[in-house]
């Protein structure tokens, strides 16, 4: 099976409260907080699309879209 690759990680900036949960528990350290304390995708190429960030986000601010497999 081909490795899951990230197509897009949608983060609703207005909903994110900068709690850091997605960042602390991402197994691949894909996310960081920016200067305004909002989560941003900084290493999209490392994402394994496990969706843990999406499922744990208390503010429902993250959605992970996988690339369609060939």
């Amino acid at each position, binding site marked *: 099976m081909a490795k899951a690759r990230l197509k897009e990680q949608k983060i*609703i900036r*207005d*909903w994110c*409260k*900068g*709690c*850091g*949960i997605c*960042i*602390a*528990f991402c197994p691949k350290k894909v996310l960081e907080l920016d200067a305004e304390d909002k989560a941003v995708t900084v290493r999209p190429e490392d994402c394994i699309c496990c969706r*843990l960030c999406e*499922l*744990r*986000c*208390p*503010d*429902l601010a993250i959605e992970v879209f996988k690339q369609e497999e060939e």
Partner: protein
Amino acid sequence: MAVTDYLRERFFPHMWCPGCGHGTVLNSLLRAIEELGLNKNNIVMTSGIGCSARISGYVDFHSLHTIHGRALAFATGVKLSKPGLKLLVPMGDGDALAIGGNHFIHAARRNIDITAIIMNNRIYGMTGGQFSPLSGPGKKATTAPYLTIDREFDIVELAKAAGATFVARSTTYHAKESIEFLKKAIDHKGFSVVEILSQCPTHYGRKNKEGDAPQMLENYRNNTAKIGSKALADDPSLIARGIFVDVERPEYCQEYDQIIERAMKE
């Protein structure tokens, strides 16, 4: 359907504090409902009062935001009048087991087909951090500046003893597990209880020096273990997670229907 189809997005961003576990419970509950493919027009959520109870404002189901401790009483009324509807009742630990403790044990005793979700942050979040029947001894709260002395309830044991026919426990760290338990609970015919340990970084976390939200989640990871696991056998001080009860017993509305039938014959 997408998860956002079950949300009242116009009320977002929601009112919960940064890192509040109650948002993750909402997240898990919506995923469970989406995965079950339920029609939102058949779902009724009743809630009482508390930070937790605010959840009913955010879901695009039929919803009743009622009075403190009485969410299950309202749910019982709705269910008896329209047994075809799915009743979901999220409650804080204070809402469910302090002021609402009686409603909780009697709903369990009757085995009425309602799913109770206890968002247990071990404190009264909304009113500023008073201790609750779930705080346990040795905890700091605004009403216990010199630490609590009360023993806490064990929600699983209490629900079991009162007669609930489905009882499970998870945490906001274990979101996938919570979704799985919620799906089973919602599918269960009878009174189902899912306790989800849910961090309140603002009051409980700050007063008890448990750190920020990610740190509190890490504690859930380190201080809990799956029932039947080696980790739990080796260290019984860990909090057990899992499905503790899953049995069948006559359901209240069905029994009541039989009474109606009998009465109509006479």
